[in-house]
């Protein structure tokens, strides 16, 4: 938690790191749509290729990506398992008593695996690994700003996000300190029943909440002294201007989407229903 401040941002100098965060948010949405457009073997192959291309473009080590996939491994295996044994088709490959495995089942399992994996890789490469949380917050504020007309407090939400990101490491450190202080008074967090252990958290939670409130009060005063008065009339130091190169990836993803639709119309091999 201390070495990686928050999120999974992986600092590097790559095309994806430099890409405008607003474009990245749009690309992520489009990419998710694309993954759901895939229906046959060639489109899934294309999807997989695009995911590999993204990894290369973001200069993120494969090890990091695989580590990111680890938490969903169980889900991946489970859904693959379900698809293999429960999909009924026409080409029976293997049959023993009630266990019947069809070719369609294998296809379905493979497709689902590719879809989930590329979804995770895609959003990871486009957003979490290559975009700092603060750039992401700014991008969302920009993209959602039309909602301000509908009186949605977009700026306030973005400000809240920023402050949360700023204080997560501070509060983590504070939790550590409080735990150490209570341990020095003989508090025991590792032994006893669940109820006992939950009770042992009270000496940590109360001081933490009290301190968080104090900090919030201090911060509110400090912000007021620095002339904060909401989003109105506010300017920004870094104004991101879209450059021509920012549109190239957008065009590429649109092209990918168009080819996927075309492939669906033509139809190749096993097609998912």
């Amino acid at each position, binding site marked *: 938690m201390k*070495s990686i401040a928050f999120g999974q941002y992986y600092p590097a100098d790559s095309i994806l790191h430099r890409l405008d965060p607003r474009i990245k948010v749009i690309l992520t949405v489009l990419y998710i749509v694309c993954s759901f457009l895939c229906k046959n073997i060639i489109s899934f192959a294309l999807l997989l290729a695009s995911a590999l291309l993204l990894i290369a473009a973001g200069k993120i080590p494969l090890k990091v990506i695989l580590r990111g996939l680890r938490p969903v491994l169980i889900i991946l295996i489970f859904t693959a398992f379900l698809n293999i044994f429960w999909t009924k088709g026409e080409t029976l490959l293997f049959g023993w008593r009630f266990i019947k495995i069809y070719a369609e089942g294998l296809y379905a399992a493979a497709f689902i695996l590719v879809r989930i994996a590329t979804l995770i890789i895609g959003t990871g490469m486009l957003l979490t690994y290559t975009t700092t949380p603060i750039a992401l917050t700014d991008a969302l504020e920009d993209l959602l700003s039309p909602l301000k007309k509908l009186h949605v407090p977009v700026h306030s939400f973005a400000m809240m996000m920023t402050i949360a990101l700023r204080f997560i490491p501070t509060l983590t450190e*504070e939790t550590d*300190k*409080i735990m*150490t*202080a*209570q*341990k*020095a*008074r*003989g*508090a*025991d967090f590792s032994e006893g029943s669940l109820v006992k252990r939950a009770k042992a958290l*009270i*000496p940590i939670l*109360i*001081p933490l909440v*009290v*301190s968080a409130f104090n900090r919030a009060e201090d911060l509110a005063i400090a912000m007021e002294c620095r002339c904060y008065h909401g989003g109105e009339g506010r300017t920004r130091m870094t104004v991101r201007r879209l450059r021509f190169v920012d549109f190239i990836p957008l065009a590429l993803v649109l092209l990918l989407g168009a080819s996927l639709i075309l492939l669906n119309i033509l139809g190749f091999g096993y097609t998912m229903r």
Partner: protein
Amino acid sequence: MSELKLENLSYFHGKGTPYEIKALDGIDLVIPRGMITGLIGHTGSGKSTLVQMFNGLLRPDEGRVLLDGVDIWEKPKTIRQVRFRVGLVMQYPEYQLFEETVAKDIAFGPRNMGLGEEEIRVRVEEAAAFAGLDRALLDKSPFDLSGGQKRRAAIAGIIAMRPEVLVLDEPAAGLDPRGRDEIFANIVRYQESTGSTVVIVSHSMEDMARYCDNLVVMNGGKVVMQGDRDYIFSRSERLSEIGLDIPQVTRLMLRLKEMGVETDGGIYTVEQAVEKMLKLYGR
């Protein structure tokens, strides 16, 4: 009245990661029983890490911590017992307060020790008195106290465990001069009446010079000097070199020495300086 001894102790922050830093480096140290020892060093010198070794909050990577000759990590399962014997008041300890009343909060440590209600009551009152906390405050919420009172309540919470060794990390940080003097006076009174071993960590050399019999100077994770006050301050030029804030009168004496006056840096209180100057003036 116990003696703490560290033998060839080393500790790494982030052991096994690429960010590994040697925080403590081959420390050999004896904290003598029954007196106040001052631990001096600037931020990052390792002093706050070191005090967490004293009561087993951190486990050394190399070397041993001996409490009355017994390695505190001999039976890791009973390390909690060591924390009752070596009481540690952390920096800005007021953030540890959490109970409904000050009395209950002071009782937290003794209760963890498994003591009986009557014993706890006696200890809470005793500890509050030692820490200079008014009895009337015991039934108040700790969150309604002033900054200085909170600090004392937190210190009382450790004293109530009746530790054989009391360690205080920057007990007066952030307090005004009167608050500082009161906290230190209470610590001295506590030491004198119980005869316990006390360790004070601070970067204020003026306070250390005033209250500690024995001094330990740390720099870069190592103990660079240890000895009694006079010995340590006789080497005040060295203290200044490692970036410590030496007392103003000591600075004055060093300056006078540079100007050719027959004096030295071994003077650290106004009384000593007055005496020395009167001698120089021949009175």
